[in-house]
């Protein structure tokens, strides 16, 4: 069951096509990574989902039907370009934004109290936003994004501006929201956090969706048949054992346990590698090397641009 689907979204601005036939399907309860280089069209897609602007073609389905204006109360959006009223007091401001999200004043007050306690920021209520540090303001911003407990959350670069401790705090909050059943769309350039959090991804490049799927499938698909073997014994023996039929990528002898990275020919099966090594050394571990999202990102984007004669 998909909470959100877009079908063939197209959006044109005066002199360029911001989105070209973009379709994505976000399963209910998943964390969905929206990746892509700067200017690829991610923010435009997010704005269309948030109904800030409309598509020229295509449609957005929310909960199985065409999205309607009132759905914004079921969506929480943390924009990349975010800010607060500097001269307004924190509490008043949080209250204002909570009410804009459809909460009654009393309900907003009640929920804000819980969040202020959770983040241990009760003392900030009467402070002006301009007195807060950037990280503190980001916490408020996060809070007002999730205060109405939306089913769909859209985070655009949620970790920018946070120190590692607060980034972890937000990461935990995101996982907690997922555990409670929320669906999360998450746009970032931080590929490590994509691997850590996302279930599904879509890579948008030059206005087009060029890669979609479950993150494990994507990574496996881009696996290049490289295995890493750590072993006890003489590294030279291992080297000799791999002399025929294997491509030695890297031999690391620095640690107590040496490691070797080997690329298999596409027709070779991985047992052959073990069979070749077993007579010479004691194998301690044997793992396929799964490519990191970072490498996939760069490879996919560069290949696409080369194939279409585009600049990076």
């Amino acid at each position, binding site marked *: 069951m998909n909470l959100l689907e877009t079908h063939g979204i197209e959006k044109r*601005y*005066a002199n360029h096509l911001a989105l070209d036939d973009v379709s994505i399907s976000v399963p209910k309860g998943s964390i969905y990574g929206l990746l892509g280089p700067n200017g690829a069209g991610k923010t435009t897609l997010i*704005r269309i989902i*948030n109904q*800030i*602007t*409309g*598509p*020229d073609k295509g449609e957005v389905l929310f909960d199985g039907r065409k999205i309607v*204006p009132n759905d*914004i*109360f079921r*969506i929480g*959006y943390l*924009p990349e*370009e*975010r*800010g*607060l*009223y*500097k*001269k*307004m007091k924190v509490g008043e401001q949080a209250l*204002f*934004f909570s*009410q*804009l*999200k*459809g909460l009654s004043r009393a309900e907003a007050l009640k929920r804000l109290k819980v969040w202020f306690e959770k983040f241990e920021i009760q003392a900030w209520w009467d402070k002006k936003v301009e007195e807060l540090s950037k990280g503190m303001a980001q916490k408020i*911003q996060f809070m*007002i994004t999730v205060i109405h407990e939306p089913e769909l959350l859209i985070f655009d670069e949620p970790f920018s501006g946070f120190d590692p401790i607060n980034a972890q705090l937000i990461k935990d909050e995101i996982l907690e929201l997922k555990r409670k059943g929320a669906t999360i769309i998450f746009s970032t350039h931080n590929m490590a956090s994509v691997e850590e959090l996302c279930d599904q991804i879509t890579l948008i490049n030059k206005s087009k969706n060029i890669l979609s799927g479950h993150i494990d499938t994507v990574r496996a698909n881009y696996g290049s048949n490289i295995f890493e073997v750590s072993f006890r014994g003489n590294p030279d023996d291992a080297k000799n054992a791999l002399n025929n039929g294997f491509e030695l990528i890297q031999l690391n002898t620095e640690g107590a346990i040496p490691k070797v990275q080997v690329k298999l020919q596409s027709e070779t099966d991985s047992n052959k590698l073990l069979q070749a090594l077993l007579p010479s050394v004691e194998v301690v571990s044997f793992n396929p090397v799964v490519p990191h999202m970072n490498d996939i990102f760069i490879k996919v984007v560069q290949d696409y641009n080369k194939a279409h004669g585009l600049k990076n």
Partner: protein
Amino acid sequence: MKEIMLILQREFMTRIRKKAFIITTLLSPLFFAAVVILPSYLASLDVTDVRKIAVVDNTGNFTNAIPSTEYIKIAYLNDTPAEKVKNNLEEAGYYALLVIDSAQNSQANPLLTLYSQKQPSIDVLQHIENTLDKVIETRKLKEYNIDNLDKILENVKTDVQVRTMNVSKNGEEKESNTLVTMGLAYILSFLMYMMVLIMGTQIMQGVIEEKSNRVVEVIVSSVKPFKMMVGKILGMASVSLLQIFVWVVLTVGLASVGINLFMDKTSTAQMEQLQQVSQGTDNAQVAQQVEATQQMSDPNNFLAALQNQNFPLIIGGFIFYFLMGFLLYAAMFAAVGSAVESVTDTQQLTLPITLPLILSIIVMISGIKSPDGPLAFWFSIIPFTSPIVMLTRLPFGVPTWQLALSASLLVITFFIIVWIAAKIYRVGILMYGKKYTWKEMIKWISYKG
């Protein structure tokens, strides 16, 4: 609606808590009241000042011809040469010295010269001129040897006063006062102009601030940009109406306290003085002045004229034209604010908006003299200038069909402009990194929502 209310409320509360707003709202009435009271107050100071005028009559024909009044004391120095007094005016305690020399031609008027250290005040001059005019006129008349001349002169003495009454179609008569009507027209249209310009600029700054703060994207993810803009300009309109209300209440309060303090003393003193000046003269100018002063300062006449203004129509008209005009211009200012990222970029873009405002004021100033002339008429129909020019015409009375035409054109224009402004606003607030021109902003209107 709920979102518009929330935006409106936030805008209103933040604005009225600003120090600058509180100060201008509370202190301006002091200034306004001072403008009302000061002339009376100053006049009350002036008249208590007794001035001594020395007269050296070298002809010998005008001995004791000029009478002293309460505030102008005339001293005839028969044996003192003029030169001696002239250089010691202050030491001798004289305000001025009048020297009367005979003309070379015996038929001509005597040569009068007034020496003073400061520029002599108008009432002194008028007193001297008017009395001597009268004296010489009487003498000339006497040369015709008419019997009972004094009696005839007494009989022909005339002082007409025009009482202005407005007559409505069904024959009702009302006391009117041109000065009151003009004053009201000025105040209404200047208030409108000031508020639109000041508050419009503030709305523009507010939009720019939200945009450069990046708070705008957070808001538009929960509120349609149109509602956000409408909420903002309505909030600002409420702020302005509150300010005007406080101004009117405080100014009227302060001015009536002030007038009670000075008015009795002043008006009577002023009256006496002017009457003395005009005593025994037919000088039309002076008579007119006296009348005008009487009209202005006779509290009953003034109040009657004020009360006889059609206040329900004027207040209703003011609120309608103020709101429509304010929102019309505010929407345009908001649209400009959305297209830039700093206030310094707005100058060129605001010119097309301020131009009709400035034009309205120019038309208003000339139109106030002929409120039914073609200039005032056309500009009170054209929607962009009508909020100000129609307010100028309103106290003078405007035919219903003109009012209806102007109002409906304004309402139609209002909806069109707000629609266009909202389209520009919606696109502009999310555009960064460039200063946009009107040409580009017009293109945004065609963008799909």
